[in-house]
């Protein structure tokens, strides 16, 4: 087995073993880490690999969550059928909105994704008859075969998230993934060697949204409900936080970031309600002191973390 698979395998074994050791509360936290980790990893397809900042990625997560929520509550569709349908609906949404987003770069890309995110948010928020408006949807329960305990749904999530992460890994290591890196580093030159940059970016945008939709679909049954806040711009900030904490130039960075962020939140909120302030301070420190995130910091010391993705972005814009 090659060195680069060692770290992910250790993580996976840890994820399998942990729920038998920790109390139930922490199993919920672990489930959240996995779901948000997949969400952040899908965001990083746009951010780390394509070099654009999406500030509206929660829209696709929310569309996935609502697809599953609506199908389960209103039509009693089994969860296993809902998951691919959520991926499909998020992907379709991104196919339309992403078409416009990839025409822009930099700050304009960030603002347009945010504007579209808010558009989706307000549609869900205002469409009472269909989405339940700001009440959200309640009574989304995990399928009967998973029972009511925390562990079974955790393992279900672990399987789905692992498959999702493997799929993202294969995509990011494919020629397509390397084309995205080329576009990130120099879009103009990539265009010159005959690659349709916009079409590739559009496709990547859709892929990122599909997996955000999958993560969103897992959220509803976990939380027993969905609310429009899942699409809000504040929620779009979370994968950005997580990715920056863990390290955007490493495939597992977003997942590690999700673990740090979620654990920290669970820990801090147990004794103070001022979590936003704490998270704000932590992230400012991360940005100023270790711009590569935790994995970026460890990269030079621990050789098994060194990957091609790990190369710092040298060109700007």
């Amino acid at each position, binding site marked *: 087995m090659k060195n680069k698979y060692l770290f992910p395998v250790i993580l996976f074994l840890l994820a399998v073993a942990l729920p038998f050791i920790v109390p139930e509360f922490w199993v919920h936290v672990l489930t959240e880490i996995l779901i948000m980790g997949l969400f952040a990893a899908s965001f990083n397809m746009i951010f780390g690999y394509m070099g654009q*900042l999406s500030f509206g990625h929660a829209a696709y997560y929310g569309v996935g969550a609502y697809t599953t929520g609506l199908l389960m509550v209103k039509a009693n569709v089994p969860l296993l059928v809902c998951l691919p349908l959520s991926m499909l609906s998020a992907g379709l949404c991104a196919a339309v909105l992403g078409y416009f987003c990839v025409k*822009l770069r930099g700050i304009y890309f960030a603002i*347009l994704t945010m*504007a*579209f995110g808010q558009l989706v948010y307000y*549609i869900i928020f205002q469409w009472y008859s269909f989405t339940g408006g700001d009440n959200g949807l309640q009574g989304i329960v995990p399928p009967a075969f998973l029972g009511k305990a925390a562990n079974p749904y955790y393992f279900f999530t672990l399987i789905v998230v692992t498959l999702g992460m493997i799929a993202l890994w294969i995509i990011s290591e494919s020629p397509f993934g390397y084309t995205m890196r080329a576009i990130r580093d120099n879009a103009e030159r990539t265009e010159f060697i005959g690659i349709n940059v916009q079409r590739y970016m559009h496709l990547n945008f859709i892929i990122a949204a599909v997996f955000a939709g999958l993560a969103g679909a897992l959220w509803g049954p976990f939380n027993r409900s969905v609310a429009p806040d899942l699409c809000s711009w504040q929620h779009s900030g979370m994968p950005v936080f997580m990715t920056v904490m863990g390290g955007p130039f490493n495939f597992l960075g977003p997942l590690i970031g999700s673990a740090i962020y979620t654990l920290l939140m669970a820990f801090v909120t147990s004794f103070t309600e001022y979590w936003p302030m704490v998270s*704000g301070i932590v992230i400012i420190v991360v*940005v100023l002191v270790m711009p590569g995130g935790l994995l970026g910091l460890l990269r030079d010391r621990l050789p098994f973390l060194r990957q091609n993705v790990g190369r710092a972005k040298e060109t700007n814009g």
Partner: protein
Amino acid sequence: MDITSLFAQFLSGLTYGTILFLVAAGLSLIFGVMNILNFAHAALWLMGAYFSYTFWSWMQGYSFAFWLSIPLAGLAAAAVGWVMEVVLIKRIYKRELYEQLLITYCIALILSDTIKLTWGVTNKLIVRPEIIQKPVFIFGAPLDSYFLFVIASGAAVAIGLWWFLKYTRYGHIVKAAVYSREMVGALGIPIPRIDTWVFTLGIFLAGFAGGIQAPIGSITLGMDTAIIIQAFCVVVIGGFGSLLGTLVGSLIVGEVMSFTILFWPEGAMVLIFVITAAILIVRPWGLFGTPMRT
């Protein structure tokens, strides 16, 4: 629908547009000169509203308390903004876009919790002086008489900024810096100092706008999260760094909101984002902006 109620709707749109203009003017100025999209702008706006409440309650016995607390709120917010710039923002001008956005977003989070810690979670209410408690009628359409003051302040700020940019030496420097920071620096003008003062001026405007906002309704936590995105929309529609654009953008957003609420209340915000997205797609630099470095 008769003409009077349409006119009343127009006036309410004008008021809301003015409030948005006051928030967005500083945002646009800061982005124009420093290329920083300040997520914390609305948090400072809200802080301005709370400052205004505090000053008002300190001076409650005096007749001028109500009016004086508004500019004082601007000054207090400007002081916070100055500290923010010198301690943090200064370090990130040359950093990457996502780092700048994250830092200002985190500052917004920190400020919001600071507001909660300082002023508590109960809503604050400023009691208006008698002179502006009754509505006035303009062509038969009722208008909250305080809104006349709001609209006049918006106009005064617009004219003041225009005068500053057109006729003063510092205004010329700011305008030149919007166009090319490097060139201005090459002429021997200390860019870091200009940055600090432009940022402080922008935050003064935010705090002043907060002071203006405060007596309209009660001051509540979380008011800032909705308005920051609308201010972004205004700036995008009008064009980053363009004063005229910000003015036109805020009036467009205010009036579109006001009239859509008549015919299709659920769609008001949706329509704003459709317009913003359309502008970004067709003319990313906005109606009155100039194509800029990205």
